[in-house]
């Protein structure tokens, strides 16, 4: 997986070819538009994500517990 900034909403054809080289992937010309479209669709989801907190502890991200956190009623008033 390329280590680059995920803030850009989409990549163009030139950037796409560079990414393919970097990732060691070979995508034929006829399939390239389909893969690029899918990549940009996924990149488009980035704007929905909140910023990563500056005090984030990376180890906390590795595991996900679906259990709901305890919620105080006062916390629910928006």
């Amino acid at each position: 997986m390329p280590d680059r900034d995920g803030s850009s909403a989409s990549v163009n054809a030139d950037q796409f070819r560079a990414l393919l080289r970097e990732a060691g992937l070979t995508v034929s010309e006829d399939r390239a538009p389909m893969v690029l479209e899918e990549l940009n669709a996924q990149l488009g989801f980035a704007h929905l994500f909140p910023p990563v907190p500056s005090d984030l502890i990376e180890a906390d991200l590795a595991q996900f517990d679906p259990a709901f956190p305890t919620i105080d009623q006062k916390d629910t008033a928006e």
Partner: protein
Amino acid sequence: MTLDLATISLREAISGLNHREFSVFELIRETLLRTRATEPDLHAYVEVFEEEALQTALVHDRAREKHKVRRPLMGLPIGIKDIFDIAGRKTLCGSPLRQDVEVATHDAEVVHRLRRDGAIFIGKTVTQEFAAGVVSAPCRNPWDLDRIPGGSSGGSAASVAIGTCLGALGSDTGGSIRIPASVTGTVGLKPTFERLPVTGVYPLSPALDTVGPIARSVADTLVLYLAIANRAAEIARIDAMLEPFGPKKLDRVRIGIPATFFTENIQPDVKASFIAAIETLESLGAELIDVDWRDAAMARAVAAVINRVESAAIHRDHIRGDEADKLDSGTRMRFEAGALLPDDMLRRARVARKAARDSIARIYAEYRLDAIAAPSTAAIAPRADCLFVDLPDGTEAVGPALTRLTMPWNATGQPVISVPCGFDADEMPIGLSIVGKPDDELGISRIAHQYEQATNWFRTHAKAVGA
């Protein structure tokens, strides 16, 4: 009781066996005969274990008669999605890339639990390649053979719907149990994330993968859920577990109705069925509360990104090796795009996942919800030759159209049960999802059971193709 595989439920089969109305051998033989008759049209199975199933049936009958052995699922015909290991069989995952794999040496843990409880495996059911998609070719929908059965557990749902097994195992990473259940008129339960073992199940996205049952009624689904959850001793108490909440059935049960996202851009017949369903819930005494989960779109994005990145990592060698051309082009495209996503996307998705879980938790707490009700899918089963479905806002690719409403619950990890809630103008099934708090599989089953019994949609069965 007549042994009619077109209509019999799993619990009715248990009763028939216990009352000696038919033997295990007769039940399995009838199931296999129906499989022979329907498979040329339906293609729900990758492989049928005819000889082994009949031999096991004879062993079970002898154990029942001579030694009075009773096990909770004894003699019941069950289908297993072909990403679960069955000892002595290849796990092909619907992919030409796995034609030469060795046979599995052990059952997947949940398969082992079913076998231990007496289930008889009819065969391996068709899956979308590596469980990554919703088409499940070559399987077709038993309600209309020109349409897909949904996926990725399409073979499991189609075989249950047509009666070539009475229950089946599926997996759900982005909707792969609920989508095929919804579009084949069956019941599918996606349990809480990480509560059931996935040992021996080929992974798609480990941070999202869940396993669960598909069957013909809520009670049948609960039987299988309890078995794979290592709680088979509780199967005898299912009637008590599914008791009404009061004289009206759903008295004072608080159900959230999404005002946005889950009710937007869905086919008109799906919307009409959903509105009729929530009116039924209200008539049964449920208190309906409008809720607006503003993070639903974010939760869907979380599930999409985690799925793509993790599945690309799992299939790293497949998309770079000489055999990449053997992958289905759509599957390969998904994995390739996932491999190109920047590292930071996964990190951001993981942060967003916890935010989505916390925000839905606040909604359940604020409105004191027992469950949320939503359409299972935005569209009915698309035709197999269509890449897009028609929706009020225009056309949408089949994949997003079917997964858009299921994926948010994979992100939060909540349990969801999909039950039939009607038909569209072409008589294709439509599904209703009941979404619970984490670990409340029994609560949502109890709610879904009251709805199911009040509507009887689940008693309408697919026409017997080829039978």
